[in-house]
């Protein structure tokens, strides 16, 4: 199935879960895992069995998670899109809502709207090298792509993940790296600072990417991480003659509504909530380097 066909059969967010895109659906927390300092993963199931059965998403999309009496925030979906009945979200505690989410015990009810936004165009990498480049909390939005690539590994030539964090203790999903490698995902892990016991890469993500010497049209790159990291990654891709229409970034902006009404997430002509979060560099290049947008 092409991505476009997948989108056509995927629910229009809101329509999937009711006629009002503001409508919040109760979800039960069924799992909770401490990942690294300040980061947790919450697993949840939509409470209503019919809603749960109809819910679908594509890798790269996000949900608005709601804590009663506190508010909502956008969080990307970190679990495989093949299993939309159980959703996981990896959350860094950086504000009121994320802090409140982290305080919810397993079994409690939170609210959910979604899925929203664009998706990683996995299909566009068929027959090519799929290069995933993540930094810090930018890995969770790419995890559904890793899962999809493992499930259909032969659709791609090389599949490479370059993932970096500040220190070894900041690395997410360390327990999964061997599984990914065994499934044919070249998994390169780098840290900025490490002691002598560290066997992986050292240095910044774009530097590790550069060492791979990827060249030309045979590559499709998906990147998510801090703005500064993505700028260097894009720069590296362009220097390697990877076409700008084959480089995709996932951008983050303030979001209130997720449906293009509130105006907060505008980035030049694009609404990050409905046109993004995943956008090709070709589309965003006018504003990508610009400060203050």
């Amino acid at each position, binding site marked *: 199935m092409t991505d476009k066909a997948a989108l056509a059969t995927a629910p*229009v*967010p*809101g329509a999937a879960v009711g*006629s*009002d*895109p*503001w*409508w*919040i659906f*109760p979800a039960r927390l069924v799992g909770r895992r401490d990942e690294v300092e300040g980061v947790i993963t919450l697993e949840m199931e939509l*409470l209503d069995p019919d809603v749960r059965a109809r819910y679908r998403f594509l890798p790269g999309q996000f949900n608005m998670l*709601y804590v*009663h*009496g*506190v*508010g*909502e925030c956008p969080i990307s979906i970190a679990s495989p899109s093949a299993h939309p009945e159980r959703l996981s979200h990896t959350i*860094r505690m*950086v*504000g009121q809502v994320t802090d409140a989410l982290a305080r919810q015990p397993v079994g409690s*009810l*939170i*609210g959910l709207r979604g899925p929203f936004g664009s998706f990683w165009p996995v299909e566009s990498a068929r027959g090519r090298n799929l290069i995933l480049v993540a930094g810090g909390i930018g890995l969770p939005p790419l995890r559904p792509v890793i899962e999809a690539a493992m499930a259909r590994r032969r659709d791609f030539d090389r599949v490479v993940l370059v993932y970096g964090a500040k220190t070894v203790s900041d690395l997410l999903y360390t327990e999964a790296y061997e599984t990914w490698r065994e499934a044919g995902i070249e998994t390169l892990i780098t840290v900025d600072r490490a002691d002598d016991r560290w066997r992986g890469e050292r240095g910044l993500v774009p530097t590790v990417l550069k060492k791979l010497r990827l060249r030309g049209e045979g590559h499709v790159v998906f990147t998510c991480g801090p703005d500064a990291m993505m700028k260097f990654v894009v720069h590296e891709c362009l220097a390697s003659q990877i076409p700008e229409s084959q480089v995709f970034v996932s951008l*983050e*902006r*303030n979001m*209130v*509504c997720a*449906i*293009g*009404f*509130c*105006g*907060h997430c*505008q980035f*030049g*002509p694009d*609404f990050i909530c*409905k046109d993004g979060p995943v956008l090709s560099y070709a589309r965003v*290049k*006018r504003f990508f*380097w*610009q*400060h*203050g*947008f």
Partner: protein
Amino acid sequence: MIETLELPKARFGDLIRRLKDRGYTVIGPTLGDGAIIYDEIGGVEDLPRGWIDEQDAGRYHLARSDRDYFFDFVVGPHSWKRYLFPPRLTLLRVTRTESDLRCEQPALQTAPGPMAFLGVRACELAAIDIQDAVFIGGPFVEQHYKLRRDQAFLVAVNCLRPGGTCFCVSMKTGPRAEKGFDLALTEFDDVFMVEVGTPAGRAMLDGFDLAAASTARRDEAETLLAAAARRMGRQLDTSDLPQLLLDRLEHPRWKEVAERCLSCTNCTMVCPTCFCSDVEEVDDLRLESSERVRVWDSCFSQAFSYVHGGTKRPNIHDRYRQWLTHKLATWHQQFGTSGCVGCGRCITWCPPGIDITEEVAAIRGTPVGETTL
């Protein structure tokens, strides 16, 4: 051809009564807070008859006119978005129980019912059209807006006396109401010329038995409107404007205007097309029921672009540039039109009197080198 009739001014009150008899709450211009605002109208006596407004950058003043026309002023600080997209509205009430989170939509149950807008200017018809594109023209439909919009009855008024900050001619939205109204009025000494825009407009005049407007009347209206078009208080050269602005994101004028801009958000509050909002979580003290309350927001606030750790537009020049480039450039890419209708409110209600037409002229006038990439 549009049906054009004549309504004697003595019967203008009958039209307002008819609107009320048909179940409409009539909203129109009235004196309030030292300005002409939009509020519920009981009858012709509530209209600011014989008043004119004098407007300039950062200045609004009401004065008596030398004639007793009903609509000799232009637009004030209010716009119809106040009624279609209320400044504060409860989107959801969420109640928590042991086993559920239950949502209700109290604002849909307590919606105001059909509203008739009396005295909608051509620029405001254009503004409503633009907000239609934002709230009901995309993949998602804003139900609260749609409910109000579908039920609204629009009585337009052609502007014969443009204001000091008006530039609708530049934005090609006025001064003549061309479409989007149910009825459109052009005011003369003793009669209103009435143009019928829709079957609903025709039905509203059932039994009025109005005479058709004479050719001379229609010609006179055209003459008056052509004269009004020549007396715009401001002008804005829109030729190739979106590209021009996007090519000049590093123009020194952005920083220069930021030294005058207070980032007070007035321009966005009075703008009839600005649609940004925030949602507040307002809970009861027992934490059982919580309301999701939508409130108008502005790209001029620092919190507007806040993402964990910092704001994306920390400087006033970032925010002024965001507002202006959105309004006049990227809006075209988003919704197919400019986001500006030339109503002049942002000029009039800016405390230091920053003038969008003057800023654009300055940016157009002095090109600088390529922006950074």
